[in-house]
């Protein structure tokens, strides 16, 4: 879920560690079920930008409770790692949405571009911790699966948004 954390986090949270914008041919009308098929991306204008400021640590560098962490390059919402979950786990008592949006983030440790899904955790209201917006690879709403202005608690029993995880789904081509 992308939201107005600009209202909350107006500090220098925009880190140019994304690999540019990518276009996803949205298949509206069919659920994008995680686990059955990974989202398909069509990169068109990949640009190499400065990596995150953190000094790389082995494999997966950075602080998952910081908006600067490399996996959050297209996140928009509250970080589950500050909300009782982790970078890949929903907080206690929340349900993972099975529908999601995706971004592509470059890991500064290996220079590889990973496909990251930003699954929303649902069924409790706004966690309110670690609001984080990084919009670089976002597309307008007519390409919804690359848009984070949408509450993606669509594939959950309750559509109420709590926070967002950032999960590696594969490597971008």
């Amino acid at each position, binding site marked *: 879920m*992308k*939201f*107005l*954390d*600009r*209202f*909350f986090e*107006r500090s220098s949270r*925009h880190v*140019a560690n*994304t690999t*540019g*914008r990518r*276009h996803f*041919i*949205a298949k*509206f*009308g*069919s*659920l*994008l079920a995680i686990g059955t098929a990974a989202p398909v991306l069509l990169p*068109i204008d990949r640009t190499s930008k400065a990596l995150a400021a953190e000094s790389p640590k082995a494999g997966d560098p950075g602080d998952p409770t910081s908006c600067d962490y490399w996996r959050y390059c297209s996140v928009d919402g509250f970080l589950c790692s500050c909300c009782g979950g982790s970078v890949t786990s929903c907080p206690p008592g929340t349900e993972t949405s099975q*529908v999601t949006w995706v971004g592509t983030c470059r890991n500064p440790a290996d220079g590889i571009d990973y496909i990251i899904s930003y699954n929303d955790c649902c*069924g*409790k*209201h*706004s966690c*309110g911790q670690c*609001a984080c917006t*990084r*919009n*670089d690879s*976002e*597309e*307008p*709403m*007519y*390409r*919804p*699966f690359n848009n984070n*202005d*949408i*509450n993606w*608690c*669509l594939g959950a*029993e*309750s*559509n*109420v*948004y709590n926070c967002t995880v950032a999960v590696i789904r594969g490597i971008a081509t």
Partner: protein
Amino acid sequence: MHSSKKLACGLMLASGLISASAFAVLPEESVGNTVLSAPGDHRSYMVDFEFNNMVSTRVVVVDPDSKTYLGMIPTGHAAPAALSKDRKTVYTADIFFSRYTRGDRTDVLTAWDSTTLSPKWEVKIPTKRAFTLTERFALNTSADDKFVYIYNFTPSTSVTVVDTEKQEVVNELAIQGCILNYPVGDRRFASLCGDGSLQVITLNDAGKEVNRTSTKFFDPDLERLVERATNVGSTYYFVTTDGDVLSADLSGKKPEILPRWSLTTEEQRAKGWAPGGWQLIATAPALNRMYVLMHSDHKPHKWEDPSTIIWEFDLKTGEKMRTLESPNLIWSLSATSDDDPLLLGTSIEGGLEIFDLGSGQHTGTMAGVTKTPTLVINH
């Protein structure tokens, strides 16, 4: 002891005091209720998303001339709002869960009286209402107020049609691959599609589809067109994230695509001037002018970032007329439709920034009237 006798004593004592006082004793009062007058041209409605809670949200009603808070409309889960053309009704498309964050979901269209700010009626709608950062064109009325169009996202996309006379749902139209509803006249709305086309659906008086067209509008593989448009009558204006203006006259069954123009000179674009914001454009129909939130240091990831700088354009010539400046960062714009229009901006601090478009002057800020105002809308 503690009876009305005691009070009577008090009143007698008070009578004694009156004579010694320069003022008359203030009379007993009763509690009244407030009813607003019919909405004037400038009445404004701020949609408050309440990011840090988002369950019970609100629309705050203000008078930007007197800078007065007039009241509020409670809504469910970041509801979009729309105003009837006769100004008598404010519609909100609400979601309610039986246990607030879980349980049974009920979606309703609620019709609020614009003078009492009380609900007049509600109708249950399919539990599909889109739950997004509030979109200006997610909820709209037909020009004759007969129909209300509600955008659905499940992520399948569709539009629910409510007949406001019958107060019932009369249709749900699939708009696969397309989003939102841009209303046109009495029986038509357009949607913006992922393949770069504009889809236009025409209804009959029963709300049934009688015509549907698809017209190429832009190339989504080459540029990003912001879906948050503005209109003067049947002509809709969109901007690309790079600063081009794409517009179309939607009065016919098929849109007439109008010539593309640019908000910026090549020099300005080279300097990094580009539009950015949430509802980043607005039009003042009486002036035939458009207002755009602009960034001088634009980067792709800033396309939804707020700004303090607003450029004014003549819609006939595409010429830049003036620059307006706000003391606070603005995220969304709206202009009034009368002959002495105001430009209104929602600040990221929760306030409303007010500009008089006759003078071009910033006339004031209503600070702190909302928490996270995603939109401001006007009659």
